[in-house]
């Protein structure tokens, strides 16, 4: 397991929302995400069929499944980023898609044009655009938050570096810093472990673990079934429909993995034990 850092990443900023003590008390009982009957079609192809589940705050939740199983689609559909045929995603009392200011989303690295003329700092500050509000400049608080987020992922010395000159792992850490700067309650990461170095993986799981300990909801789409999977508390196994969900041990049972991956991962049954 990852070495855990007992300190919460940004006590000063993350818990000090306007509203003081009451707000803090509230944020300790975070609501869960309830997905019911979620169905998504891409043109003629069915991407997800009737997925119903709940995602608990305070736990690291991984979405796994074979290529084309609809993992990223599931994440995007939950946030209303792709058209949904039917189904609801509720957080607290309202649809999650109406509360995107409480969500921090990290897209797949391959979706991004890394030749875009921006520095590390520009990208992290994007995490403060919503908080800053329309027609306004970034406040000093926003700068502070962005700085400490950058510091937390170990990238502050790269502040002025163009994003195109970073390694894959560094790019991923910059995106994680952007997500942290959003001071969200729900963190959604789409394949953050693809093509990164060991150091970045450690940093990512350290931070995700801290977020979970602070009762945040953390959802990670994870492509490979390597050792990294042991970091997750709960798993959601998809293959165009929900195969299994719940705590890691129960999802990784051989019969589930057979159903999800079609017998391609026999060797994997040893892992479940």
């Amino acid at each position: 397991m990852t070495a855990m850092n007992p300190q919460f990443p940004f006590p000063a900023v993350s818990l000090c929302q306007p509203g003081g003590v009451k707000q803090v008390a509230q944020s300790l009982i975070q609501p869960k995400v309830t997905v019911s009957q979620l169905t998504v079609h891409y043109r003629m192809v069915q991407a997800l069929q009737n997925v119903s589940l709940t995602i608990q705050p305070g736990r690291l939740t991984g979405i796994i499944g074979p290529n084309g199983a609809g993992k990223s689609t599931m994440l995007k559909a939950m946030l209303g980023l792709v058209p949904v045929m039917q189904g609801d995603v509720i957080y607290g009392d309202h649809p999650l898609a109406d509360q995107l200011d409480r969500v921090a989303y990290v897209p797949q690295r391959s979706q991004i044009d890394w030749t875009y003329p921006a520095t590390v700092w520009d990208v992290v500050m994007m995490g403060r655009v919503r908080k800053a509000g329309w027609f306004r400049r970034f406040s000093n608080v926003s700068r502070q938050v962005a700085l400490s987020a950058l510091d937390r992922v170990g990238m502050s010395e790269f502040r002025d570096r163009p994003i195109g000159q970073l390694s894959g792992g560094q790019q991923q850490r910059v995106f994680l810093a952007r997500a942290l700067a959003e001071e969200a309650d729900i963190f959604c990461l789409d394949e953050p472990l693809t093509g990164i170095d060991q150091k970045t993986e450690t940093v990512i799981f350290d931070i995700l673990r801290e977020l979970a300990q602070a009762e945040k909801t953390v959802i990670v789409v994870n492509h490979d079934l390597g050792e990294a999977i042991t970091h997750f508390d709960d798993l959601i196994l998809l293959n165009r429909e929900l195969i299994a969900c719940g705590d890691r041990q129960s999802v990784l049972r051989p019969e589930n993995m057979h159903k999800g991956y079609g017998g391609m991962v026999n060797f994997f049954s040893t892992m479940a034990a």
Partner: protein
Amino acid sequence: MLQLLLEPLQYDFMQRSLIVAVLVGILCAVVGSYLMVQRLALLGDAISHSVMPGLAIAFAIEANIFIGAFIAGVLSTLLIALIHTRSPIKEDTAMGIVFSAFFALGITLITVIQKTNKVDLNHFLFGNILGVSWSDVISTVVIAAIVVVIIVLIFKELQFYTFDPVGAQAAGLPVNLLNFGLMILIALTIVASLKVVGVILVLALLVTPGATAYLLVTRLHWMMILGALLSVISSVSGMYLSYYFNLPSGPAVVLVSASFFTVAFLFSPQHGLLTHPQSGSALTPLWREVKGLLPWQRSRR
């Protein structure tokens, strides 16, 4: 030397055209940077060709040609979006279909009205900057002010959206509105530029200064500022060249702008062809493959 610079300014038409050229230069460099970073250079070309029928109709019914062109430009972007969201046709193909159809319609309409009204198709195609009136200058000032103020006001939102549209949407930004707003800004810019360079060469003003700046700086707002500066220099020197050597004004501006790009392409500290020779060997693999096809090379194997 000073005499050389001041001489053209004694003419009223040169004053007007210089003002318009400078304003349009700034506007195009700033707005064109968005086209470039979104890989939408073709969209700039599409909108500029698509304004033709709007120009023609506005001319025929004696309405404001800026408004006619603007409506046609926005209509074309909506049509392109409709085709590519509601059918499996890709965006670039949709652009090709829509803009060539609009352009053809525009040419047809202008040819028809040419007989009754005294209009010159060439002025639409290549601009007629020496013919701008003071009211054209005022229209350009108003459009430039509106566009620049809007961009300054929503710069951070547009930067987020153009860099990472899905991330921006997930952060709760109204991305469809931002996209539509950007299209409107682009259409306004193109409409304001038509007098200077015409339909065919607008694209050069939109992408060349931004691309030149992109080779030299690393942040979007620097790219816009440096691009605007280069654009102003190109516009002014293009106008003077056209005055002294009797060259067509629009093409002269575009050629100066293109030579700036050439210099940056060759000597940029980060990306230059000559300053970084190892990255300039794009032709070598092609040459190797061609050599591999030659008969005496094959028989040797």
